[in-house]
């Protein structure tokens, strides 16, 4: 790929410099248009002050007008960029009245702008042929696959190589597993043969590239702030906001707990010690206990790690040698109700099992609800109720489970939709369990009192929601791992909208700060080394 195409693939839009000295009290606003459409709605316009790690983005309305709220942009020299699929920024000019006029032209390289969802809807093939690709997008975009010229044989070798990489790999930091992932050769060969029909092994793509519509109406009423991390290798996975408004995050590829001050952009890292030298580094889940201490699931480093926020000190809870294999992996941790019984829940991916840590003794117990069950199971997202009973998502399968804290017995509740692959979860104040059905393209709720489910479709096909968060108004927030869109959904009315993010964003854990008005949505850009704050201008969808 040429450098220009690579740059566009990375940012998803084009860059153009414009120097603008805004007065302290002036509101920065402008207009965006193209020859093809005239005034353009739903164009994301981003502004970044020279040298700043902070980028602010707004969206043009039906008249093609956009404006940055006064408080979001201090005076200075700004660099502008846009995102509107099919278009790129041709020129920008200052209007006589201090406004900015942006002119877009048709994009020279549409493929470099497509999201994975747009590739999914563009590529010919059956749902079953495309289904295995949802594993690929954890680490990279499909553009990377589809620009290759590999035939089926070469593609099979590439796929085999992929099984040697750790889940916590990014393009910026590739990590090799100590033990290869298991795979069925015939399935991998089938996928390789399919990919060789949709890549460029037989020449240019023989199918047309389809795009999703740009945001419109209320989906344009938003301000998005991106905070770039000081290193491109930082992969913020789970982000949450503490009582002081600080954003804390787990770093998926390095043994650091990170903290960002959104007011100033100041960034600090707290290093936790290597637990298993030579194994892939980094943590996945970040969760708090009642006292506001942070807990990390140490992935291939194994075990769980506690960060005492007052002492600024880490405590590592290692797996005992007999439980610790080269394949051991803790992706989740649930300390939320540990004050009840002194116990913290986690998972053991290598055994399709759950574990419970006794904080005082440091001992782990193993729970194997799927032992002797066969099939594909993988306990993933965790949440505990008031009595520290555990609810877990069977990400490998199609159920959510409950483990009784006292008896250790498991109850397994299959979701109404088969092969749904429930992923991350949260519990609301009524004790209801909200979760994303990743492979079913749905968000769902399980009511433990009624032992019943409700499911809602994501409005866009191939959204692949990773997580869901219910806010103080009862509205749901979720993010797509493939379309760079944040879903806002009212389960009562069925109304929804999708906010488009300014850059390619591999959305994982989502968080809503309920203390602001309107609420504020936060997410890490796992592949893009940034933390994103999304401020809707509307308190409610209605």
């Amino acid at each position, binding site marked *: 790929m040429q450098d220009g195409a690579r740059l566009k693939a990375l940012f998803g839009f084009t860059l153009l410099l414009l120097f603008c000295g805004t007065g302290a009290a002036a509101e920065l606003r402008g207009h965006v248009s193209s020859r093809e459409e005239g005034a353009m709605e739903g164009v994301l316009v981003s502004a970044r002050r020279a040298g700043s790690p902070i980028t602010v983005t707004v969206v043009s309305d039906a008249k093609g007008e956009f404006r940055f709220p006064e408080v979001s942009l201090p005076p200075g020299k700004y660099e502008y960029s846009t995102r509107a699929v099919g278009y790129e920024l041709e020129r920008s000019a200052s209007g006589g009245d201090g406004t900015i006029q942006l002119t877009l032209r048709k994009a020279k390289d549409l493929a470099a702008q497509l999201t994975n969802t747009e590739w999914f809807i563009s590529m010919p093939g059956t749902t079953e042929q495309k*289904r*295995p690709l*949802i*594993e*690929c997008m954890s680490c990279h975009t499909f553009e990377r696959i589809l620009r290759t010229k590999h035939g089926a044989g070469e593609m099979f070798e590439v*796929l085999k190589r*992929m*099984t040697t990489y750790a889940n916590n790999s990014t393009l910026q930091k590739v990590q090799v597993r100590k033990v*290869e*992932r*298991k*795979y*069925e050769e015939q*399935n*991998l060969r089938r996928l390789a043969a399919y990919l060789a029909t949709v890549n460029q092994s037989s020449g240019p793509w023989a199918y047309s590239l389809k795009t999703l519509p740009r945001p419109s109406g209320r989906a344009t009423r938003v301000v998005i702030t991106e905070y770039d991390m000081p290193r491109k290798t930082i992969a913020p996975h789970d982000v949450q906001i503490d009582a002081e408004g600080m954003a804390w995050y787990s770093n998926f590829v390095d043994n650091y707990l990170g903290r960002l001050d959104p007011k100033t952009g100041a960034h600090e890292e707290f290093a936790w010690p290597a637990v298993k030298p030579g194994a892939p580094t980094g943590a996945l889940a970040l969760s708090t206990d009642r006292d506001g201490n942070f807990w990390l699931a140490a992935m291939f480093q194994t075990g769980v790690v506690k960060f005492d926020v007052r002492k600024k000190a880490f405590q590592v809870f290692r797996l005992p040698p007999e439980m610790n294999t080269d394949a051991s992996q803790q992706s989740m941790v649930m300390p939320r109700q540990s004050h009840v019984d002194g116990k913290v829940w986690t998972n053991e991916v290598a055994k399709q099992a759950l574990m419970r840590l006794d904080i005082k003794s440091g001992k782990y117990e193993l729970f194997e*609800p799927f*032992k*002797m*069950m*066969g*099939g*594909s199971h*993988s306990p993933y997202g965790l949440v505990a109720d008031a009595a520290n009973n555990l609810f877990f998502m069977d*990400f*490998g*399968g*199609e*159920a959510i489970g409950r483990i009784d804290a006292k*008896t250790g*017995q*498991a*109850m*397994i*509740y*299959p979701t109404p939709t*088969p092969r749904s*692959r429930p992923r991350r979860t949260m519990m609301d104040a009524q004790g209801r369990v909200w979760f994303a059905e990743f*492979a079913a393209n749905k968000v769902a709720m399980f009511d433990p009192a009624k*032992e*019943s489910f409700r499911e809602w479709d994501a409005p866009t096909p191939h959204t692949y929601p990773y997580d869901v968060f219910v806010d103080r108004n009862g509205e749901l927030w979720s993010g797509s791992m493939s379309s760079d869109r944040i879903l806002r959904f009212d389960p009562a009315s069925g109304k929804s909208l999708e906010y488009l993010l300014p850059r390619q964003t591999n959305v994982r854990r989502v968080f809503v700060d309920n203390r602001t008005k309107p609420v504020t949505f936060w997410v890490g850009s796992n592949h893009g080394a940034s933390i994103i704050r999304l401020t809707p201008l509307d308190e409610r969808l209605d």
Partner: protein
Amino acid sequence: MGGPDEHPDEGLVFFGYVKDARGAPIASAKVTATMKSGNTFIVQTTATGLYRLPTFSTNINPAEVVIACAKEGYKQTRVIRRPIAKANPPKPVETECRMERG
């Protein structure tokens, strides 16, 4: 790569109907399948009284999986297990659960 979607479902499926004394289907009844370990699978019947429990390993002896049904206002009267055919891959195991009001 090598994720769950690489492994299509295989193994035993439990399914059947929940019916009342006259043979009419009972919707939204709770059906439990309890294994020897004490771990339990729980599903609800559809509008036609049908339930389906996903795949169990072929290592599990279907005779050791206890099927039961429940719904408010009803009590379980009979559980009828159809003869289990030996086959590879295994055939689904059909179990009917009868309830009456009371």
